[in-house]
């Protein structure tokens, strides 16, 4: 497959504007300026591009929620969500560090299509190097006339502001991100109102993932059909960055067509299992919050939004975590639960109180103090956390608990009965 998002990241200094322009970056922006804005959005819809942040909402549809004639008093804003912080996810980092101009181009195309007067790029605090690259790249783009006043002589003004977060997972939630961007505590907001009605500073706002925005230049340049031709079917189109980690020979970020089979990704792209004599045990296909898959569920599984959902998990951010048979699933889950307990903002009762409770029970089991009834308690608690909070963090904490306990029940039961791991025992 022709690489679209990472086509020239291996050359010398790919993050500079000279190299980027030599590889055709900003040609899409030039083409789009002057095009009819609604037609642009229609072409994004036609491309089938779905949000790469994890939810998979059609990008063009989201853009069409924005007002057609924003007033100067209530301007429209675009936010690029670069707060990539789901455990296992590190795909956006490649774009941010190696191909920042493609992202800037995508942001400006999107801003143009939605009549935005300012675009914000919110980058997670831990991405220091990427932030420095972006600060520089935005200045380069500004000098070249792609950002700022009178972009490419069109009379359209749109600034681009890069804002570094302070390293909180919750600030990747779109409305918490807005609070944080406004200078407040990052707490998810109640919906309604939705961001397109009242988002950043109470103004109409669309927020998109780094990878999603980076797909837009290709759609403008080559047409929605060319984009839709990549992928498994019309609901799962385009290229996709897969961040593979865990027990494979060559973990990393790989640009592949949407719908590549999971086993092909592991065997062919990543060189197979880290230790060939150890069998595959489980895969988390979309970041730590999604339900885990057992080895047998990984067979014949195309990696895209719909296929993974049909298999009972979620495609999420395509952060594929591979675990071989030496993995202690109880400890994995205890660690995942620690993460969500640590990152819960604390607003909603079920999440604030439930996430640390889950963690405490799991840590106790992992320490050998498991009791009869713990598994039923975990499952019941997780069930009561799901769908009862403002944002999906409680669901993110609950889903792995339910799936781990369901799918690897014997390991949990062994721990509770014997006070130690079944894996190390074997």
């Amino acid at each position, binding site marked *: 497959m022709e690489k679209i998002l990472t086509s020239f990241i291996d050359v010398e200094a790919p993050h500079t504007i000279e190299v980027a322009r030599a590889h055709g970056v900003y040609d899409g922006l030039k083409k789009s300026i002057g095009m009819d804005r609604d037609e642009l959005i229609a072409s994004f819809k036609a491309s089938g591009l779905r949000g790469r942040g994890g939810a998979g909402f059609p990008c063009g549809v989201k853009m069409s929620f924005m007002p057609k004639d924003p007033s100067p008093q209530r301007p429209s804003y675009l936010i690029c969500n670069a707060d990539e912080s789901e455990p296992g996810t590190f795909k956006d980092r490649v774009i941010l560090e190696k191909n920042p101009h493609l992202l800037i181009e995508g942001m400006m195309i999107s801003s143009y299509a939605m009549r935005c007067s300012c675009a914000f790029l919110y980058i997670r605090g831990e991405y220091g190097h990427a932030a420095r690259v972006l600060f520089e790249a935005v200045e380069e783009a500004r000098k070249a006339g792609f950002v700022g006043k009178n972009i490419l002589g069109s009379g359209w003004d749109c600034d681009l502001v890069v804002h570094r977060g302070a390293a*909180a997972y*919750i600030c990747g939630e779109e409305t918490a991100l807005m609070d944080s961007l406004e200078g407040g*505590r990052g*707490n998810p907001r*109640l919906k309604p109102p939705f961001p397109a009605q009242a988002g950043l500073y109470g103004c109409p706002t669309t927020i998109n993932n780094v990878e999603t925005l980076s797909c837009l230049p290709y759609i403008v340049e080559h047409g929605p059909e060319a984009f839709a031709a990549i992928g498994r079917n019309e609901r799962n189109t385009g290229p996709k960055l897969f961040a593979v980690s865990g027990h494979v020979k060559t973990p990393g970020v790989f640009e592949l067509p949407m719908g590549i089979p999971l086993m092909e990704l592991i065997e062919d792209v990543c060189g197979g299992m880290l230790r060939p004599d150890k069998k595959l045990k489980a895969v988390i296909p979309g970041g730590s919050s999604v339900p885990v898959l057992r080895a047998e569920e990984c067979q014949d599984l195309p990696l895209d939004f719909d296929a993974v959902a049909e298999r009972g998990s979620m495609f999420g951010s395509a952060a594929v975590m591979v675990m071989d048979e030496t993995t202690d699933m109880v400890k994995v889950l205890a660690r995942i639960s620690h993460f969500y*307990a*640590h*990152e*819960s*903002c*604390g*607003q*909603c*009762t*079920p999440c*604030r*109180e*439930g*996430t*640390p*409770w889950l963690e*405490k*029970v799991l840590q*106790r089991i992992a320490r050998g103090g498991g*009791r009869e*009834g713990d598994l039923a*308690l975990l499952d019941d608690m997780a069930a*009561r956390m799901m*769908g*009862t*909070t*403002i944002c999906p963090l409680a669901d993110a904490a609950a889903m792995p608990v339910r799936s781990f306990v369901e799918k690897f029940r014997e390991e949990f039961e062994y721990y509770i009965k014997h006070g130690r791991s079944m894996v190390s025992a074997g």
Partner: protein
Amino acid sequence: MPTITINGRELTVPDGSTVLQAAHANGIDIPHFCYHEGLSVAGNCRICLVEIEKFPKPAIACNTVVSEGMVISTESEKVQDLRRGVMEFLLVNHPLDCPICDQAGECTLQQYSYQHGSSLTRFEEEKEHGPKRRELGPHVLYDWERCIKCTRCIRFCEELPGTGELGLFLRGVRSEIGTFPGRPLDNPYSGNVVDICPVGALTLPEFRFRSRVWFLTDVPSVCAGCSRGCSINLGVLRNEIYRITPRTNHAVNRWWICDEGRFWARKIREQGETRLQGARGSSDQVVGWSAALDEAAAVLSSAKKRRVRVLASPRATLEETWLLAKLASGPLEGAKVHLPRHERGEDDEILIRKDKAANRLGAELILESLCGGAQDVAELEEALLNGEVDLLVALGPGLAGPVDGEKAPLSAKALARAGQIVAIDAFPSALSEAASIRFAASSWGESSGSVINFAGRVQQMESALTPQGDHRPAYMILAELYDRLSAEPAPAPAMVARSISGDVAALAGINWVDLPASAGQDAEGFDAAVQACRPTGAAAKMIAAGWKL
């Protein structure tokens, strides 16, 4: 006006109502912690989750606006299970120290635990621990372990006084309510956060550990601190006011009171030693109330009416002022009547008025109707200095509490030039010092009566305490004088109200019988004044939000 269905009942509710407002307006209870009708919606406690047909998942009733045909279930199996779940989560790290918690007995957490929770816990881990006694400001203590992080207190400070001293710090289960460096919780309304705290996390140091709330009797009363006349409850036990809490009254103070009013009773208690006691005649030969009253009556009846002045008080009740006006227009006919001002600071946009008297409007109305109006005190001062006053009959400035260095309406020099002064007062002032005959009146909280606030709202207060010292309600003292000077006896206090309605046109329509139980009633012709009392700016927006229904 959409028609909705709640638990099978079809209801037509106002546009823009939330599910919770619609339910509550129709007597259907939906539990809630973080929602407060006077504050913005936070939606964080999750106890108000309900099921709505066609909604993919349970929705919070406090932030879901009704729409035509909405079918809501607030008591389904699923909803009850969700509530049990939220209650269980809330109690996971809660210390369950109800036996020593001041909130016990009026705690929402207790109430819902009883109604919606389980008597067993499945939590067997170590609870989170945190500070139990952190001073947020001079009037408020914070107990982290009891706090359920509903953020009512934070929203209150942002939205009512607009001072925003409180914030949520840290994250997740370690979240805590706190203040910013160098900015303690110290605004004129800070005590309200204790009232709206649904649990025992915020407490008043002055009430902490002093009484179980169920031993207190709430006596409805009216604050005497300023001309707002906030509706309050006096929490009384063994003839002592333990605390003052706001009594919700949308026409006057909504859900709030200021800190000065909240600590009014404490001020009276703390300065109790200084209170005036007994009746004092002009010489040592006059001993006891009867003798002093006889002497005063004699002085009053023998004085040349043109050289008599009467000083009313905007701090006296309607009944007391009416009887004083009866004296002035009857036995003392011809005497000029004056009404002093007691002002301090400025009006704020919320509750506090610079006029520090609860019944100015009532006094003005009565004096206007019975005495042709009251004259300025400056004129009285001048007359005193010119030696034109043989007798001054006065209700003192300390009737409602200590005068605390307040500027006296009449100078000591002028008072010294009066021939004689007959004064009725509760706390000492320049006037009571200068009085030749002086009667100790009961103070605020010890007598009943009516007051009219600056906006024309008539309210009644009940006597909460039995007077302990040697003093009498001012009305009784005036009635004794009146009886001695007039052919007809003074009416009993309870009967005065009808006479007032007969004498004062603006009060003709007042339904006195219902007053104590209701939130008071507007005097006729004061609509404009009532309009004027509506706060502006941020507070008004907030009230509008609270008045959605």
